[in-house]
C-alpha cells in the first residue's frame, strides 16, 4: 500500500463524507421505521374487525356461493409483488424478487400462465427488463401510503379475479419480523379462505339487505384491506432493512477511516524521519 500522503488524506475525506451520508440515512430510516410500524399497528383494528364479521357471516350461512370464496381450476395466476422505489436497502428487493422468481419457476411453465401486478420501481424495472408479463404497476408511492393510494391496484387485481382473467391471486411482500429480519413471503390472497370463525362467539346477525349482499360488499373490501396491510408491513420492512444496511455501511466506513488514519500517520512519521535524517546527513557533510 504505497500510497502518497495526499492520496490517503483524500480517501479519508471522501470516506468521511460517505459515512456522514449513510449515517444520516440510517437515522432517517429509523425514524420512518417507527412511523411505519405505528401505521401498521393502527391499521390492524380495521383488518381484524372486517375479518371477524366475514368469519361470522361465512360460518352463519354455510355454503355461501360468493365467487371470491370459490376455488376454480387455475388457468392463470396473478401475483401482487411489493418492492421499494429506492435502493440502498440491503437485500430487501433482491430477496423478494428471488422468492417470486423461484415460485414462478416452480409453478409455471409458460408466460401465459401468470401475470404480475408490481408495486415499486425496483420490482418494475426488474420484471420489465427480464420480460415478465406485468399487468399493472404503481411506482412513486408515498412513504406513508394512504388507503386511497393502494385502492387502485388492489381494486384492479380483485377486479381481474372477479372478471375471471386470473383464477388465483398471490400476494408477495417482505413480512416484518424485526428491524434486522424481514421474511419474503408469498401468500395466497384469492380465492379467500373464509377466515376461521370463533364458534363460541357466533352471532346471529340480521343482515341488511341480505347476507349475500353484505358479503359481496365486504369481500372485495377485505381483499383490499389485506393488500393495504401487506403494503404497510412491506414499508416497515423496507425501512428496517435500510436501517440495518446503512448501519453496516456506517460501521464499515468507520473501520476504513481508522485504517486510513493509521496509514496516514505512519506515512507522515516516515516522511518526518526521512527529513530529519536528510538534515542530519547534510549537517554532517558540511561539518
Amino acid at each position, binding site marked *: 500500500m504505497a500510497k502518497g500522503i495526499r492520496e490517503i488524506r483524500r480517501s479519508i475525506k471522501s470516506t468521511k463524507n460517505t459515512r456522514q451520508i449513510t449515517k444520516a440515512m440510517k437515522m432517517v430510516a429509523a425514524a420512518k421505521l417507527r412511523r411505519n410500524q405505528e*401505521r401498521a399497528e*393502527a*391499521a390492524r*383494528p*380495521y*383488518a381484524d*374487525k*372486517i375479518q371477524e*364479521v366475514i368469519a361470522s*357471516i361465512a360460518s352463519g350461512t354455510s355454503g355461501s356461493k360468493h365467487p371470491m370464496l370459490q376455488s376454480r381450476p387455475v388457468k392463470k395466476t396473478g401475483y401482487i409483488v411489493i418492492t421499494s422505489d429506492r435502493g440502498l436497502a440491503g437485500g430487501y428487493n433482491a430477496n423478494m424478487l428471488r422468492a417470486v422468481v423461484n415460485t414462478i419457476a416452480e409453478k409455471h411453465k409458460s408466460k401465459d400462465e401468470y401475470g404480475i401486478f408490481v408495486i415499486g420501481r425496483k420490482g418494475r424495472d426488474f420484471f420489465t427488463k427480464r420480460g415478465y408479463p406485468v399487468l399493472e404497476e404503481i411506482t412513486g408511492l408515498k412513504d406513508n401510503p*394512504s*388507503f*386511497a393510494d393502494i*385502492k387502485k391496484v388492489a381494486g384492479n387485481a380483485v377486479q381481474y379475479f372477479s372478471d375471471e382473467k386470473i383464477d388465483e391471486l398471490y400476494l408477495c411482500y417482505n413480512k416484518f419480523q424485526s428491524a434486522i429480519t424481514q421474511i419474503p413471503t408469498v401468500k395466497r390472497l384469492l380465492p379467500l379462505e373464509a377466515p376461521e370463525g370463533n364458534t363460541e362467539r357466533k*352471532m*346471529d*346477525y*340480521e*343482515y*341488511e*339487505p341480505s347476507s349475500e*349482499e*353484505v358479503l359481496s*360488499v*365486504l369481500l372485495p*373490501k377485505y381483499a383490499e*384491506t389485506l393488500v*393495504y*396491510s401487506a403494503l404497510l408491513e412491506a414499508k416497515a420492512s423496507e425501512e428496517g432493512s435500510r436501517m440495518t444496511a446503512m448501519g453496516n455501511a456506517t460501521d464499515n466506513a468507520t473501520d476504513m477511516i481508522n485504517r486510513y488514519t493509521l496509514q496516514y500517520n505512519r506515512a507522515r512519521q516516515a516522511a518526518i524521519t526521512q527529513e530529519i535524517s536528510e538534515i542530519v546527513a547534510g549537517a554532517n557533510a558540511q561539518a
Partner: protein
Amino acid sequence: MSKMTVEVVTPERVVYSGQASMVIARGVQGDLGILPKHMPMVTPLKIAPVQIKVEGDQVVRMAVSGGFMEVRGDKVTILAETAEMPGDIDVERAKASKGRAEKRLSEKYPELDVQRAERSLQRALARIDVTK
C-alpha cells in the same frame, strides 16, 4: 339511560371510540337509529353523515364514506374507508368540490362518469352537512 360502546375505524386509524346512547346512520336501505340492546346486525352504509349521541344533547357528527356498520350486543362498530370529524374537514374545499360535481352532472356531456361525479357530490354534501 343505558349506554353502548361505539367505535369508528378506518384502515388508517381508529377515528372515534367512546360511549353513546344512540347512533344514527344511513344504511343502504334507509336511515337507521341504533339504541343500546339492538339486535345484532350488519349493513353497508351510504356516503352520509353519521350521528353519535353521546350524552344529553351532545352529538358527535362525522362524514363517512365506503363503510358498513356492525351492531352486536352493546357495541356498534363502523368500518369505513374514510370517516372525518368536523374539525378535519376543509369546508371551502368541500363546497368547491360540490360545485364542481354539480356542474359536471348538469352539463351531461357523454363521456361523463356519472357514478363518480355522484359519489363525489355525496361526499361533498356529507362533509358540508357535518360541519353545519
